């Protein structure tokens, strides 16, 4: 099903001509004839959920902003894509920037905003943002932006700005801080950005994701009810851009109805696992989400189902990992990311992420003890819900779930077993941190037997003491 990505495979898909040839900028005049509140009502009916990660209903957010009586109001676009595994917004901006621009203009009209900022991550300056800027310039030249848009009397200035490399600036209040020229420390809420005093320059502000806004022309064209029916799960309307990566045959961004299950996504879109791979684990929504096992691939990928299963749909970044990966190695990698990207404002996060990272590294280096694994679990429990923003929860959720679902991998490392068998399932180069043991050639059946037995018997029966 291709709605957002309909133009993506065409040559020069980013140009205005290509977009107009496939019916682009038809929704805008229609929207400008409507009452702004009617647009928001359509969006409420469409069950459009924020595609950035939290899945907050977009219509509800806009209603909050509309209720405020303080002017000016702002719409800020979050194009600070940085969650490991996520690359859909970049593709959106590179391949069909006009669809996003059209959605942006409609969104601004709906909340009565006359100055909007698109905050791209700094690394995009010469690629995605340059292409967006070209599209914005074209939109100005053709009367889709600027003064008196299409003769409706609605004025809108679109300003593209860029950051300087900080994952935390993807958090909406940190993004606003950064946009105001400060370091990206998330703000204490309330007041929320949608309320006066909490948004950009203390004005009511809607912060929306690139993909969310790209859906707006579709909603106006189809109508809210029709759009909502595309989703496979109630309260989760439309299609979603799934960014599929990892050990699959054809990684890439695939548009599928919201709520497709992970098995179908893998088999119908990404071509299955690569040669010689069997699925071991799935990261369902960017590295902050709790991990899923291969058996759980039948879960639907919408916001509500995954929330009920104690993980999250997040940014729609699905990473499929195969049997070569030791999940403790993967967790060490993820934790190193959070330790690096924690902004340092709240102690549980600043200290907690660093502790988690150190403990994981210790386990991966083969120096871990059983208590270290328990400590990771305990520390992550203490980090949850104790900080200003959700970065700490984003680190705690994987830490807890990797251990709960793949404890055997951690134990294998703690007992000095994984490296012994790493010739069978070498976790790519990460084994460089692990000293290989001299006795290696044990057949793979023995390995399976051993891993099965390892949870019951002391390590010393089969192997030399831990290195």
């Amino acid at each position, binding site marked *: 099903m291709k709605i957002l990505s309909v133009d993506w495979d065409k040559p020069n898909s980013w140009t205005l001509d290509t977009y107009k040839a496939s019916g682009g900028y038809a929704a805008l005049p229609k929207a400008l004839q409507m009452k702004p509140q009617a647009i928001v009502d359509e969006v409420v009916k469409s069950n459009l959920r924020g595609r950035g990660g939290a899945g907050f209903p977009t219509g509800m957010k806009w209603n909050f902003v509309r209720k405020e009586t303080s002017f000016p109001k702002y719409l800020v676009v979050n194009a600070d*894509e*940085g*969650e*490991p*595994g*996520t*690359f859909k*917004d*970049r*593709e959106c901006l590179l391949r069909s920037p006009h669809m996003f621009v059209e959605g942006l203009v409609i969104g601004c009209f709906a909340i009565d905003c006359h*100055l909007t*900022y698109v905050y791209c*991550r*700094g*690394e*995009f*300056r*010469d*690629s995605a943002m340059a292409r967006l800027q070209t599209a914005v310039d074209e939109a100005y030249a053709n009367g889709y932006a600027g003064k008196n848009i299409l003769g409706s009397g609605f004025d809108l200035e679109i*300003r593209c*700005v*860029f*950051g*300087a*490399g*900080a*994952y935390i600036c993807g958090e909406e209040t940190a993004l606003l801080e*950064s*946009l*105001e*020229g*400060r*370091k*990206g420390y998330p703000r204490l809420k309330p007041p929320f950005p949608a309320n006066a005093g909490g948004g950009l*320059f203390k004005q009511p502000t809607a912060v929306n994701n690139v993909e969310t806004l790209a859906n707006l022309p579709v909603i106006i064209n189809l109508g809210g009810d029709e759009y909502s029916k595309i989703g496979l799960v109630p309260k989760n309307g439309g299609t979603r851009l799934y*960014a*599929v*990566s*990892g*050990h699959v045959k054809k*990684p*890439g*961004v695939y548009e599928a109805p919201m709520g497709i299950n992970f098995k179908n996504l893998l088999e119908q879109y990404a071509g299955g696992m690569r040669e010689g791979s069997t699925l071991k684990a799935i*990261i369902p929504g960017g*590295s902050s989400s709790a991990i899923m096992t291969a058996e759980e691939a039948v879960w639907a990928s919408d916001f509500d189902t995954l929330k009920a299963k104690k993980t999250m749909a997040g940014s729609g*970044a699905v*990473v499929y*990992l195969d049997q070569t*990966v030791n999940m403790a190695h*993967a967790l060490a*990698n*993820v934790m190193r*990311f959070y330790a*690096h*990207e924690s*902004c340092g404002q709240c102690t549980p996060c600043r200290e907690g992420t660093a502790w988690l990272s150190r403990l994981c590294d210790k386990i991966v280096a083969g120096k871990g003890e059983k208590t270290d694994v328990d400590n990771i679990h305990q520390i992550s429990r203490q980090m949850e819900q104790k900080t200003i923003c959700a970065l700490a929860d984003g680190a705690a959720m994987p830490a807890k779930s990797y251990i709960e679902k793949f404890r055997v991998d951690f134990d294998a490392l703690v007992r000095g077993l994984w490296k012994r068998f790493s010739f069978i399932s070498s976790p*790519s*180069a*990460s084994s*460089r941190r692990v000293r290989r043991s001299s006795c290696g050639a044990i057949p793979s059946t023995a390995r399976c037997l051993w891993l099965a037995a390892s949870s019951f018997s002391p390590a010393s029966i089969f192997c030399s003491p831990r290195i």
Partner: protein
Amino acid sequence: MISLGTRAAPAASPFTPEQQKRFDDGFEKAVAKYPSERRRAALLPVLHLAQDELGWLPDTAMAYVGHRLDVPPVRVREVVTFYTMYHLRPVGRHHIGICNSISCWAMGAEKILDGCAQKLGIRPGQTTSDGHFSLEEVTCLASCGTAPAVLVNNFTFVESVTNDSMSKLIDELRGKPGQSMAPGAAPEKEHQP
């Protein structure tokens, strides 16, 4: 000398006349993006402008940017040290950042990192002795579908790299002059995380 005053103070320009002209052009454009009473908000883009000219952000550049935007030096420094794209000391004329977040890692980014480190004879975080290359391990570049991904000089994406393609890229870059660095403190020998 690090000036950490809490009030904006006048400072001399660190640029040559040619650089100054480019900086001033960019400065006007950057400031024009914000409401006139909010010109301080342009701090990030203006720091980028200064770094584009000098290759890194020496204290003199930070002081000058603060002066132009009426931002106290301590606030400028706070911002520069917070964001990873600003360099606090000179880096190589070609700065290579290799992504090692989960998707790139799963596709073998550590091998690429090791390969580059070996070819250049430096470790991540270091600069080659001729000042031509510096190597860094960076976090997710939003290019996970074409992993492993590499970012050259902060803004250029190189995707689906292999050890061979990286080796070729490095040889190619060696022949190019790259970004010239403002004179300053010697690059640090060891990366201190």
